[in-house]
């Protein structure tokens, strides 16, 4: 069936480096995408979102890129900090629904 998934289960980076977390989706009807951060013992926390009519959206230290041609989504974190260590999930919402469908997470480990 259609799903949202991640390429890399674990990403290790050094503090100060830039991080890129990737996500592939297969549902062409999805028109809204969200990145969540989940720290140990906590629920997923909204980071940034993007609508399908956009290619790029920037937040504070984070950028989401959307490539609809290849159904690919990425989250870029600039100057990664130890506090960024967490599991990151991408999620999609289909048109007309506000329920996100989550993919498998990527664990980001930031070494001081």
């Amino acid at each position, binding site marked *: 069936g259609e799903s949202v998934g991640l390429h890399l289960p674990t990403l290790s980076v050094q503090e100060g480096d830039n991080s890129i977390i990737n996500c592939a989706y297969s549902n062409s009807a999805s028109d809204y995408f969200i990145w969540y951060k989940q720290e140990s013992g906590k629920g997923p926390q909204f980071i940034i979102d993007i609508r399908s009519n956009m290619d790029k959206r920037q937040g504070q230290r984070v950028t989401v890129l959307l490539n609809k041609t290849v159904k690919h989504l990425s989250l870029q974190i600039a100057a990664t900090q130890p506090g960024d260590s967490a599991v990151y999930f991408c999620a999609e919402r289909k048109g007309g629904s506000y329920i996100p469908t989550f993919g*498998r997470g990527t664990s980001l480990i930031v070494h001081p």
Partner: protein
Amino acid sequence: EAGVVQSPRYKIIEKKQPVAFWCNPISGHNTLYWYLQNLGQGPELLIRYENEEAVDDSQLPKDRFSAERLKGVDSTLKIQPAELGDSAVYLCASSFSGGDGYTFGSGTRLTVV
């Protein structure tokens, strides 16, 4: 603001025993969601309430799982009897109708032994 409050944070029970989880949503949020999250996986929706009405419970295993939101505010999710495979984190989320303000609680980690 307290956010979405869930209790207990952790629960360990023997298989075949009942267990219940409680969720108090953010004040004013009339939509409440219960999710199941297995290790390394994203949350999977079990049931969604609009006020006191369950409007999407297609993923809820109704032979052993039940939920209620009697007054349209807090909610309880119950499993009876629990099985080993039910070990997971049970997350609650809430939002305004239409999805604005979508916020997760910290979850209840259930271990069935």
